[in-house]
């Protein structure tokens, strides 16, 4: 077969969608021909849909780039005919670049590098808004502002290449939420995915909850690797046959097909939240979950979508009296009757659902008294808790406010047992940060699998880790310039005053538009996922 011009994807082939960094030659298993696939940086290429990929995202089309780097429009409006490509533009920069494609053609690397540095194709819809590993760490889900969910799967470790640990490749993509319009209030409901939470795996399929401001959805992600062939009433293309032409009957058989991953919405939990949903949390009974908005928390049963129970309601009868909102909520990892929720005043309430149906009266109330020497106009804002997470053991809770991360023992309500300064050098800049609204940024925090290390994000694409045992901490940076594949991350340091060392960065040089709000830690291994605006970084412990 004639070699197509480099830079054009011609014909069709069957390949498993994945992130490949540059023009790649992929061979078709069916007829052993091969074709080029050109990627825009790390664009995901979908198979043309002579098969039905109902959940693939057809809508967000990115510009097609020839190897010289100049964008050219791709005419995808013609639809999904055979031989055409449907392109989804997504900029992701995994640090584990698949070496397979790099080795194939040397000259692809040059193109690859230029793609990597080109930021102009990033759109706001690609901003990652949530990251979550599933319970085994095999899958990693991200949600973005455009309402899409992308799931990565860790590839099986091969015995031949022991030094290469399993890398994450794209497994499934689907449009979880669409923008909606509330006609009565004349306002648009954003499709941005606020949170994703996985359900524990109980059969071959994977289940996750995803939510935007108003609606929670339960998605089922399942694989299909067989398809039925030999229908009597339909021909091989799926067209109905004229019954008069059927003279024999045959039994359809299941034949293997290329692996297809499909995501289907199984439940939609809507119309239960007046305010914006900020948290969802699956209960340890695996039958219920809760969703929390600014003023209320509702308890759902996975099977029932038209009803939820309100378990917390802090809305005052007179809205004039409103001074506090709910900022985050989570179920205890083991006790299905216990949950916590945090507030904009820096308090955490632990509630027991056995005590009463409406958990307005808390069982425990966690609050640290204010330090009088640190008071300012912004005291309340910086004390507002942006995230609350139980430790895996269930003994501790961790909270994130604007400047610190705190660890609380469930048995001690009057103060945290540990406080870690994330970026205390910002304390003198609160006024400017109030002005540009950065002071309202909601950072998340995570535990590692053994609850010995905690991690949270900061500005300038920095993220911080704190070792609870050794009390050591480290600042790392997630950026393309500094991260070559397999490069070891160098610790960073912010210079707070005085003489700045060579590799330090001064507070005034920090880029406050580069914020790391969302991070995730593998449940058992030292693998972390860090979302930096529209880029996802996956870092692993150095393998010996």
């Amino acid at each position, binding site marked *: 077969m004639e070699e197509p011009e480099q830079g054009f994807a011609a014909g069709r082939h069957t390949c498993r969608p994945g992130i490949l960094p540059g023009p790649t030659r992929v061979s078709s298993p069916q007829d052993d021909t091969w074709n080029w696939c050109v990627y825009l940086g790390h664009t995901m290429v979908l198979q043309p849909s002579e098969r039905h990929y109902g959940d693939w995202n057809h809508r967000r089309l990115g510009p097609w780039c020839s190897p010289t780097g100049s964008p050219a429009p791709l005419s995808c409006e013609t639809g999904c005919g055979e031989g055409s490509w449907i392109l989804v533009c997504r900029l992701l920069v995994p640090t584990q670049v698949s070496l397979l494609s790099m080795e194939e053609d040397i000259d692809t690397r040059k193109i690859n590098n230029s793609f990597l540095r080109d930021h102009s194709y990033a759109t706001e819809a690609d901003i990652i808004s949530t990251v979550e590993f599933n319970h085994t760490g095999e899958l990693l889900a991200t949600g973005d502002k455009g309402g899409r969910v992308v799931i990565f799967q860790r590839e099986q470790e091969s015995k031949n290449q022991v030094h290469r640990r399993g890398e994450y490749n794209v497994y499934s993509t689907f449009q979880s939420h669409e923008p909606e319009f509330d006609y009565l209030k004349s306002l648009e409901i954003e499709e941005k995915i606020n949170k994703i939470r996985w359900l524990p795996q109980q059969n071959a399929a994977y289940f996750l909850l995803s939510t935007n401001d108003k609606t929670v959805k339960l998605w089922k992600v399942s694989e299909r690797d067989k398809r039925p062939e030999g229908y009597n009433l339909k021909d091989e293309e799926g067209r109905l046959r004229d019954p008069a032409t059927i003279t024999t009957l045959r039994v359809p058989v299941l034949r293997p097909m290329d692996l297809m991953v499909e995501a289907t919405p199984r439940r939609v939990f809507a119309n239960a939240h007046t305010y914006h949903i900020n948290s969802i949390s699956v209960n340890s009974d695996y039958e219920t979950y809760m969703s929390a908005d600014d*003023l209320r928390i509702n308890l759902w049963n996975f099977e029932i979508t038209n009803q939820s129970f309100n378990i917390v309601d802090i809305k005052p*009868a007179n809205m*004039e009296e409103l001074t506090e909102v709910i900022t985050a909520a989570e179920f205890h990892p083991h006790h299905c009757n216990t949950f916590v929720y945090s507030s904009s005043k820096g308090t955490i309430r632990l509630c027991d659902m056995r005590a009463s149906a409406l958990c307005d009266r808390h069982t425990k109330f966690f*609050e640290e*008294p204010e330090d009088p020497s640190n008071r300012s106009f912004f005291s*309340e804002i910086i004390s507002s808790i942006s995230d609350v997470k139980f430790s895996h053991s269930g003994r501790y809770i961790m909270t994130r406010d604007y400047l610190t991360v705190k660890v609380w023992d469930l048995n001690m309500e009057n103060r945290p047992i540990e406080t870690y300064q994330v970026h205390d050098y910002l304390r003198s800049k609160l006024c400017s940060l109030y002005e540009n609204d950065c002071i309202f940024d909601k950072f998340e925090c995570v535990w590692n699998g053994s609850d010995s290390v905690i991690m949270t994000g900061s500005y300038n694409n920095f993220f911080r880790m704190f070792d609870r045992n050794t009390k050591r901490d480290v600042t790392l940076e997630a950026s393309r310039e500094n991260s070559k594949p397999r490069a070891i991350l160098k610790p960073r340091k912010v210079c707070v005053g005085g003489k700045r060392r060579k590799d330090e960065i001064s507070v005034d040089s920090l880029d406050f538009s580069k914020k790391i709000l969302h991070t995730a830690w593998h449940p058992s291994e030292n693998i972390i996922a860090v979302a930096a605006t529209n880029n996802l970084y996956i870092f692993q412990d150095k393998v010996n």
Partner: protein
Amino acid sequence: MMLSKGLKRKREEDEEGKEALAVDTWWLDPGHPAMAQAPPAMASSSLFDLSVLKLHHSLRQSEPDLQHLVLVVNTLWRIQTCMALTAALPPMPSLPTAPGIADNLLASSDASLSASMASLLEDLSHIEGLSQAPQPLVDEGPPGRPTGGAPPSLGALDLLGPATGCLLDDGLEGLFEDTDTSVYDSELWAPASEGHKSSPEDGPGKEEAPELDEAELDYLMDVLVGIQALERPPGPGR
């Protein structure tokens, strides 16, 4: 305990007598390090303007971020109190309850300051900041709770809520001045009876208790907001 009125408890609260009267008034202390940083009046006033701008901007959104709004309002309250006190005013009498003190501060604050703030709030008051969604089909729990009789801590929050009393009482006639509202008057406010044809504004067929409760008021407010929203161009969105 559920809603603290914007005040945190002090670090040392071992004096019994003080506990009930403990009011966070660090901004009154001229020796406080935060106050000593910059000329208080100047810093406060620019922060005040900034906060009012933020509040204004937040309320102009079609659906304000409630957390942002609450934090800005609370901060604005702190700044405003500080400014009022640094404007060389007569000392305010100490009162037993925090809301009472708040009210008193407002009352004794600088006349022009409170007048400008009041006029700003009045301008903003036509914006329904926080409307309620149409009543969802699920039970939302007990509809109301006793307010405890505490007066509002900040007038700005009037425009946050449905402010059911004032808008309905005064504004309803204003809104529908040349419209015959007898249908709404009779259908919505009277106890539900079988003979009545349901008005277009009725909720989704949910059975309601005869007397008007918060749920119905919420829904009515929502309708009014919908009408208001249609009359003005939608905001820039979130």
